[in-house]
């Protein structure tokens, strides 16, 4: 085939230029470490890179959310632990006071401490986080949730809670409303609550008892009434007699699984009621303890009344402790769920980074081998060109 001098020269130069541009591309891949710089380098890969980068960025946000959630839950747990300890101390004080040997002066001294503990509990319930939000205000975060409203404490928050996204599929609640924690404490045993009537004239002391058979329990109001000093009748809400028996001091009386005991000597006509537990707020319980401790029972009947009352309050405190523990357990389970979500997220991060690197980054071994091959071919093109271009018949004329 005939070859023109110009095309030989142009062809040689074009080959060298092409080799150089390939070499420059490989070199830029090695220098930047990236295989895909524009969408055209690998359209499918570019979209995957976008997705992985988005997932990684989302994970960063989930990590930040988890940190906030973890600090909120820890704060709540600390508050619940403090409240639990406080209730434990008050329970101890109540047991101490519920002893016939303790005189009025000592009871009043105990009342002073209980009063200050009640204020302390109010402060715990009104705790704020670092951002100034009330921990137990539900979603009404800016309003102080608990305040004295006359004699009682009222809740100004709401029942709402927040869900915090911690992964693409999981959202964890970041707290409990103050209503649930401090106001809606189950009353009595949880299913029923026994009280002595204030009009009792005997010295019968009520032990508020326990639920022995929840399945048998029919919620309703029942009255244990002493028709004589030595026998009782159990009346239902419509005053129909549903049970009766002789009174034995300290002997148990069971109504549909609800078991109470009355010790001492009740008088004829004395009444003890069994009602559904309902809810008691913890501040009201503390207030009732203070007023019980500050009362000065003059008669044996009033002393028995006080003892029944304190028995009920002790039961309510143990219920409160259980309730706070339950809430704490809930917080604990959320924290442990958060831990496992965090561990999963960290694994996912690692995996996503590996994927991203596979998609986007240069494989140095391949790239450097390619560059060496390209350099050899460029060098060969240059050398052969100079040799061939130097040949001319004119040299021999």
């Amino acid at each position, binding site marked *: 085939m005939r070859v*023109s001098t110009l095309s030989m020269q142009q062809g040689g130069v074009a080959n060298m230029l092409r080799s150089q541009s390939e070499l420059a591309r490989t070199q830029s891949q090695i220098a930047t470490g990236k295989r895909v710089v*524009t969408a055209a380098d690998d*359209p499918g890969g*570019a979209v995957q890179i*976008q997705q992985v*980068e988005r997932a990684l960025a989302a994970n960063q946000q*989930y990590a930040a959310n988890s940190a906030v959630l973890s600090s909120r839950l820890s704060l709540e747990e600390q508050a619940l632990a403090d409240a639990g300890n406080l209730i434990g101390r008050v329970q101890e004080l109540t047991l101490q006071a519920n002893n016939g040997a303790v005189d009025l002066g000592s009871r009043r001294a105990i009342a002073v401490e209980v009063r200050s503990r009640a204020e302390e509990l109010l402060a715990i319930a009104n705790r704020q986080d670092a951002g100034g939000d009330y921990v137990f205000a539900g*979603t009404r975060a*800016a309003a102080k949730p608990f305040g004295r409203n006359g004699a009682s404490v009222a809740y100004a928050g*709401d029942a709402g809670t927040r869900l915090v996204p911690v992964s693409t599929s999981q959202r964890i609640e970041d707290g409990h409303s103050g209503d649930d924690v401090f106001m809606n404490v189950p009353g009595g045993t949880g299913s029923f609550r026994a009280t002595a009537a204030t009009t009792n004239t005997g010295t019968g002391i009520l032990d508020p008892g326990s639920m022995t058979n929840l399945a048998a329990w029919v919620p309703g109001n029942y009255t244990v009434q002493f028709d004589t000093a030595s026998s009782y009748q159990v009346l239902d809400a419509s005053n129909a007699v549903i049970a009766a028996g002789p009174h034995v001091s300290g002997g148990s009386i069971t109504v549909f699984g609800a078991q109470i005991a009355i010790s001492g000597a009740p008088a004829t006509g004395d009444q003890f009621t069994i009602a559904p537990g309902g809810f008691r707020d913890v501040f009201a319980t503390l207030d009732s303890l203070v007023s019980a401790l500050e009362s000065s029972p003059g008669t044996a009947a009033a002393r028995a009344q006080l003892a029944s009352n304190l028995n009920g309050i002790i039961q309510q405190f143990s219920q409160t402790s259980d309730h706070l523990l339950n809430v704490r357990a809930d917080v604990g389970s959320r924290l442990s769920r958060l831990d496992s979500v965090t561990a999963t997220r960290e694994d996912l991060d690692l995996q996503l980074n590996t994927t991203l690197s596979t998609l986007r980054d240069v494989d140095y071994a391949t790239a450097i081998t390619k560059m060496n091959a390209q350099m050899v071919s460029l060098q060969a093109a240059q050398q052969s060109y100079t040799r061939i271009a130097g040949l001319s018949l004119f040299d021999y004329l």
Partner: protein
Amino acid sequence: MSSGLSGLLAFQRALDTTSHNIANASTEGYVRQRVELGTRPASQYSNGWIGNGVDVTTVRRQVDDFLVAQSRSSGSTIGRLDTFAAQAERVSKLFVDGPAGLSGSLQKLQNAIQGVATEPTSIAARQVLLGEADGVSARLAYIDGQLRDLDTATAAQVGSATGQINALASGIARLNKEITAGIGSSGQPPNDLLDERDRLIDQLSGKIGVSVVPQNGGILNVFVGRGQALVLNERASVLGTTTDPYDGSATRISLTGSQGALDITSSVSGGALGGLLDFRSQVLEPARSDLGRLAAGLAEAVNSQHREGVDLKGALGGDLLSIGGAASTPRGTNAGSALLAVTRTAASGLTGSDYELEFTGAAWSMKRLDTGAAVTLAGTGTVADPLRADGISMVVSGTPVTGDRVLVRPTREAIAGFGVLVSDPSRIAAAAPIVASAAAANSGNATITKGEVLDPANVQLRSNVALQFLTPTTYSVNGAGSFAYTSGQPIDLNGWRASITGTPAVGDRFTVADGSTATGDNRNMLAMADAIVAQRLDGGISSVPTALGRLTSDIGVVTQQAQVNRDAQQILQDDAVAQRQNFSGVNLDEEAANLLKYQQAYQAAAQMIRIANEMFQTLLDAAR
């Protein structure tokens, strides 16, 4: 004697031509020339025909028309692909640039929404959300701005390409004239003028696809598009840019010849001009419209959710993002006065295409401009019953005349109006307007969901409502009526929806109350985080991020194809040029050999004259 002289003259011409070849060995487009020799007519004598020497019959260019046509056609293909790929690469770069890119900005916005969901009372988190919304808006504006700049630059390049084409065309027309004149006087081809004309046609084919048709008298006629004459004989038509009949901005190509101006935009193919036009219609305009569609989807997702929430001040949220409207332009030549007011109604129906509506006398017909497919229109065009199709609705005003056309661009200008409307961070509606709750004293086990907003415009939305169970299967609303209760069945009232599940006891109460003081509520932000990634585009099969992914990959694929085609075509082009060059180009070794050959022949012819001279002398000496 005269034979020898003829040899001397002929070889002198041959040596001249060889030296002309050597001198032009490096001239681009130079075609080597050969002296063609022919024997002179012999003289007849009684004893036979005696030769009279040699004549130069012509000096011929060594050219193969097939190779020339091949290199031109591949030259115009490479011109198109090279321009197309270079422009497409610029668009492609706008779509992948890591966390700073649009995809990264969208994710940051999503993250900021979750940040507010996590800390709804934090002004700092809300400020971040506004900042990231600004970031998305800035990123969209940047990409749209770059695409607009590319559009402007493309228009300028089209203008300069037509200028170059006109200069080349008039050069070719002038050379046609000179070549005819050159042939006319001597009958011999003016080789160097032919080279010059070929060079101009080569350049022209890089700018625009041409077909070249030879005519008697050495004339070459050049046609573009579908056989429109750019150069005919000695006259060149003028290629120009004209404004679009719709918006007056887009550039159209017209050819003004003896027949008047002719719009040839759709028939231009190949060359840099074809590449520019293809780039504009296949990459640039679809990218802008599709990006507008994404922005419309995003704004719809964010705004519709934001309207359902309440802000820190207890007010219902309005729109968080603004977005440009849909554009419609009646064709400048319409006889009637009809205008269309276009609004986008649902992002899920939007296609990213532009449309042309034509009044057919009784009704309007609609056509997609990217596929050319007809679109079925619903409605009559009145305010009460607007024309509806593909996520847009159109209200006709004025009076159309049969044949009137209107261009509708539902999303092209959307990004121009994209922005963040809220500047006060406390105005971000993170909370839900209602809070549903169960009374603590309820003795049944029924629970109520937190409630969601169906219609934020309902004036009763935030009125307090108490649902009280009269029996385990009926309830009253605010103490009135008796409604049947089914566990889990949604209860829709006052523009909200909540559902009660379980077995309520008689007297159990559930309340739905105004949530405007619940500043720590994050339900609306959680819903917004979901709304952004909800599948609301393409008829509900893709989300904003996946649609962005598809746009990125579409542009990547087009660019990659253009690059691959360009690289493949470059090899074909190099080959075609090399073949043509190898046939027509000068080989110096060959010329050196010719030099020797002609030199020797010249010397021999000179010897002939010397011998003739000696013979004559011998004769003279003999006679003396």
